[in-house]
């Protein structure tokens, strides 16, 4: 496993419903990231298709593995790079059952996937209308470190990042499609989730305009002490690279010992109270 990883945040502007176009943009960014020395390149939520697909999501969704995965596996292999991206996933058992999924590929092929657990269905969001909730939050042991995946609104809840950290994650990735009116929430939550878990957090957001929603970009890598290591531009396409040094984890854990001071006996009470709400 690498001790230091160069992580590329590929903040792209996707075309809704046009997988071919989006894959070509992803390929271009992967090549550029590789040229700049990246080991891992991360794309935003639903970057394969764009975010607001509405009813067309049923046509666009693919099973995993599927044709788009194969296409991106080829480039991961060719460029010898790890890739994280988002796509609407179709269940193999019931084709109208979709998931909002993050996929992790290595040069050797598909490593795994994460299905979004918190689906926003309020304000301009209507994800529960189309997607089924995910039920698992796996941590993947890779050459790039132990990684956990999350998607956008998941980061509003401390539970998944904490669970991933307790399962051993060193790097939590959050891929996102966040419109500008919500930027301040993400600026706070990304820092909070990294700091409260003393973990690296890479956040990658879309840019561009879909149906009047303006995605604000602002992708970033947060260090385990909550500081911003690398940050992409607001509102515009960008590709930035930050280096994660896993040796920093131990220093942060000693200085901000939230993991040492965890109180598991509160968790049962949290559950009881949440169920009664």
């Amino acid at each position, binding site marked *: 496993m690498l001790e230091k990883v160069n992580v590329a945040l590929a903040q792209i502007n996707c*075309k*809704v*419903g046009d997988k071919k176009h989006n894959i070509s943009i992803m390929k271009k960014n992967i090549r550029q990231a590789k040229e700049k020395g990246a080991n891992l390149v991360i794309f935003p939520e639903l970057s394969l298709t*764009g975010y*607001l*697909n*509405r*009813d*067309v999501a049923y046509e666009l969704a693919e099973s995993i593995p599927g044709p788009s995965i194969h296409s991106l596996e080829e480039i991961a292999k060719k460029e010898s790079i790890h890739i994280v991206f988002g796509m609407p996933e179709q269940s193999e058992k019931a084709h109208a059952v979709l998931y909002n999924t993050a996929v992790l590929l290595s040069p050797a092929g598909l490593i795994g996937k994460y299905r979004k657990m918190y689906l926003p269905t309020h304000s301009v969001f*209507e994800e529960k*209308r189309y997607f089924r909730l995910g039920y698992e939050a796996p941590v993947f042991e890779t050459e790039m470190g132990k990684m956990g995946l999350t998607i956008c609104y998941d980061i509003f809840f401390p539970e998944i990042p904490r669970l991933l950290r307790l399962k051993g994650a060193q790097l939590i990735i959050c891929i996102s499609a966040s419109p*500008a009116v919500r930027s301040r929430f993400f600026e706070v939550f990304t820092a909070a989730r990294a700091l409260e878990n003393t973990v690296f957090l890479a956040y990658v957001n879309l840019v*561009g*305009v*879909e*149906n*009047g929603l*303006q995605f604000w970009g602002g992708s970033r890598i947060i260090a385990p002490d909550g500081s911003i290591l690398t940050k992409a531009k607001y*509102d515009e396409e960008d590709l930035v690279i930050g280096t994660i040094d896993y040796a920093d984890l131990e220093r942060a854990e000693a200085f901000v010992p939230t993991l040492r001071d965890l109180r598991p006996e509160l968790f049962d009470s949290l559950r009881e109270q949440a169920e009664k709400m």
Partner: protein
Amino acid sequence: MNTLELTSDALKLDLPSVETRIKRFIKDYVEKCGAEGVVLGVSGGLDSCTTAALASLSLGGHKVLGITMPEEETHNATDIQHAKLLAKKFGFDLQIVDISSTLKVCFQSLPIYDATDKISKGNVKARIRMVYLYYYANKLNRLVCGTSDKSETMMGYFTKWGDGAADISPIMDLYKTQVRQLALHVGVPAEIVAKPPSPGLWPSQLAEKELGIKYETLDLILFGLEHFMKSREIAEQLNLPLKLVEDVKRRWLATEHKRRLPLTTKLGYRTVGKDFRLPHKPY
């Protein structure tokens, strides 16, 4: 949760950010459509002047065509002068097209025309202006850019399929008092911003008189309703009679039909305007 404070501060904007977002929205959509630019009605009033200014700043004046459509009954030389002043300042083309003769023919051909029914008559004016704008848009491969603000849209204070008809409405998420802030910020002349708003459908028509409320108050009531506040809370905070707030709320709810596609009854598997939920194209 703290009560939302309904003061003018609640309506303050981050003006540079709002300006940037509106300009980006216009440019992005016009480019995605492959259109040559926009055409919009420029009456010389606050909303149309602000929209024309923003469109020019976004696309460049050469891609913005303003059409001023005066007619005999409401002819206002100051408004026309203001439209010309703005066009010069922001570098967009302005055409003055008098619609009086069209209106005359239209009214004459209506078997049930009633000159004393000023609302029906006024709505024809707004709809004729829409017809003209869409002619220009079709002919010149441009989009029609609406100029409605959030206050009048929420109140249904516009003509359905008239001035409410457009391809994009860049300032429709800003209340009137917010449009005033933005107008001054982008350089719309103060004399235009200071004018009392009028739809100009009949002589001496004034929006605030017709609505029965000042925009400063109306906008705060609407802002409260937008934020799920109860009528009573809004009335208490603004020290207004409850009836006034409830009248505004009633009007807002009663005019939802003006903000939607025509209603149909559900018969099929997926139905236009109900559960046919497609992505907006172009995006």
